[in-house]
């Protein structure tokens, strides 16, 4: 009997926590959505004066399309570059033992953890001299600083659980290095790569301060545009831009949820 009561209590408290969790997670998106359809939404109304002004602005003003394109372009290139540079590095860290590995590991992880304000401020002078300031190239380079280590740390755990024997087996069976890589290595680590890429994309996608310092106003990614509208109090357009901004993250979330369930790394 006592056990039954305890179980009932546990179920109830779990249910409560789950309901609170559900509300806490999803309610934040409600006002954003509502604002995007408002002309005016003043206290104390729970329903706004409806208008498509914000969405019209989104679909007709070239600055939104330009921003979106820039963000997609930059984040995609950063992700691909990080993957190309990060894959061998992660393999080295995940599968090899060598002197100084601890130090390298620490060094590689630092840029993903340390606030990069100092780095961006410091390197800006150099970028100006090299003509990289206010250019997409410059922004891509500065995004690499937090994204690449993030990619490496994600991939490293994939390699740590990786058994190189399957590669050896393939070689024994007559496959050369390239075929081994393409037909054995890649498929095995593909889920891990996908998750790492998706999250790395989001890290680059979300950057604000770094893009602002290096890219200035010419490289207007979506976060910069979003900030401008929020700062000026235009919550309607801000809300609409926010929804456009969050879409890729949502796509990534739904797309990768099957991979995420088993993944231990963030």
């Amino acid at each position: 009997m006592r056990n039954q009561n305890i179980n009932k209590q546990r179920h109830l408290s779990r249910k409560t926590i789950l309901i609170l969790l559900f509300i806490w997670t999803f309610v934040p998106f409600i006002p954003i959505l509502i604002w995007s359809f408002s002309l005016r939404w003043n206290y104390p109304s729970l329903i706004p004066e409806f208008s498509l002004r914000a969405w019209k602005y989104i679909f007709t003003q070239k600055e939104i399309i330009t921003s979106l394109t820039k963000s997609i372009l930059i984040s995609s290139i950063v992700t691909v570059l990080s993957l190309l540079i990060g894959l061998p590095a992660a393999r080295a860290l995940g599968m090899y033992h060598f002197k100084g590995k601890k130090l390298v590991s620490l060094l590689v992880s630092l840029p993903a953890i340390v606030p990069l304000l100092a780095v961006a401020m410091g390197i800006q002078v150099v970028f100006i001299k090299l003509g990289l300031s206010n250019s997409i190239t410059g922004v891509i380079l500065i995004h690499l600083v937090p994204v690449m280590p993030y990619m490496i740390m994600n991939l490293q755990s994939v390699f740590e659980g990786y058994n190189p024997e399957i590669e050896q087996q393939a070689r024994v069976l007559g496959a050369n290095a390239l075929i081994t890589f393409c037909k054995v290595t890649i498929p095995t680590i593909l889920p891990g790569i996908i998750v790492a890429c998706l999250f790395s994309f989001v890290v680059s996608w979300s950057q604000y301060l770094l893009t602002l310092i290096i890219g200035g106003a010419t490289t207007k990614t979506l976060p910069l545009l979003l900030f401008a509208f929020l700062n000026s109090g235009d919550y309607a357009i801000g809300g609409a831009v926010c929804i456009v901004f969050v879409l890729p993250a949502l796509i990534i979330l739904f797309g990768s949820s099957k991979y995420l369930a088993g993944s231990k790394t963030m």
Partner: protein
Amino acid sequence: MKQKALVILMVGIMFFGLLTGCKGKDTQPVQQQDATDNNASSQTDSEQPNEVKTVDNNWGDMTWTEVLEEAKGQTVNWYMWGGSAVINTFVDEVIAERAAQYGIKLNRVGVTSISEAITKVMGEKTAGKDTNGEVDLIWINGANFMTMKQADVLFGPWSESIENAVFVNWEEPSIKYDMGFEVEGYESPWAAAQMQLIYDSQNYSEDALPHNYAQLLEWCKANPGRFTYVAAPDFMGTRFIKQALYELTGGYEQYMRDDITKEEFEEMSQPVWDYFNELAPYLWREGKTYPKSSSELNMMFSNNEVDYSMTLSAGGISSSIAAGTFTETSKVYTMDTSIGDVNYVAIPYNSSAKAAAMVIANIILSPATQAQGIVDISNGPVIDSTLLSEKYVEIIKAAYETLPVGTFVKEQDLIQDRVPEVSGYLNVFINELWNEKVSTR
């Protein structure tokens, strides 16, 4: 009607002639404008090539026709504050379309703070990038303008020689001096600004509202928590405090010197800090904190957290009401001391589209654009109606007539309460002293 127009024109010419003294060349353009007037359409700003004028600039003599020719095919990166959707749309559509008629591609670059553009140009100069600068045109005024001019990063002089410069009264103090700094042809006017208070006519009528700072204190005591102002160093805050400075220390004339030190200013301005500290407990949140920006204040006003907001648009708030920023019953009025000045556009020294940039500045000054600015974005015109032909005067008048009553202050009332913004360099002291003496009490 025609006689009236002629009289106005003649008075205008005499006025202009008197002011400019012996500068013969300045009287000519007014007559020429009359001639081209008959040919020019009211929609575009295309002037006839029979007008030959030299552009007084530091890259040699060029006629306006040659400038127009050079501008064809150029792209202008115009850096400006990007937080207003209506201004963005106005520039992207109205101005850019007119620019396209001249073969110019206008690329608006929105920034959160114009200092981003300034530091960019300064950075380019120190890196030795003297051509092909990123910034071709910049919406600027005041201390920022002075910084750029003194750092030698501005192209000029050019603004008094562009074609539509004839519509501007260059001797008017609010145009000739940008917050006390002499413009000297290094920037061209864009819109007039004047501080007004916004209130909801549903709740109050203008008579019940305070018209000077003494009355404001009384009003706040009677209505605690219903008023606040933007924190310095936001521009709206600085200006509100500076108006108090004029009113509480005996006028603005005493500040028209360029040698006031911070210590001296601290002494001179003490009554202001005493006033704002006395006011604080009756403000929103008892003055323990202030909104960071005018958009924050606007939101608080629309949400009825406070009874006032403020604007600098000399044309009022009709465009903001249409954009949903304010309720439809919102109205504006000026206090007895209301600082009015002008915003400008300037051209960095290293732009490689200077000709096109000048044409943009020219488009801005055209009566058609100025009139549309009144309607679309509540800009106050910077062109002098005494320098315009009757047709253009009508266009401006018609623009004002489209504005709902009460959403703008009539020109004569604006002038009556207007005081100039002098000695812009004092604003830094104002910001520092306010933060030291008032906000961190």
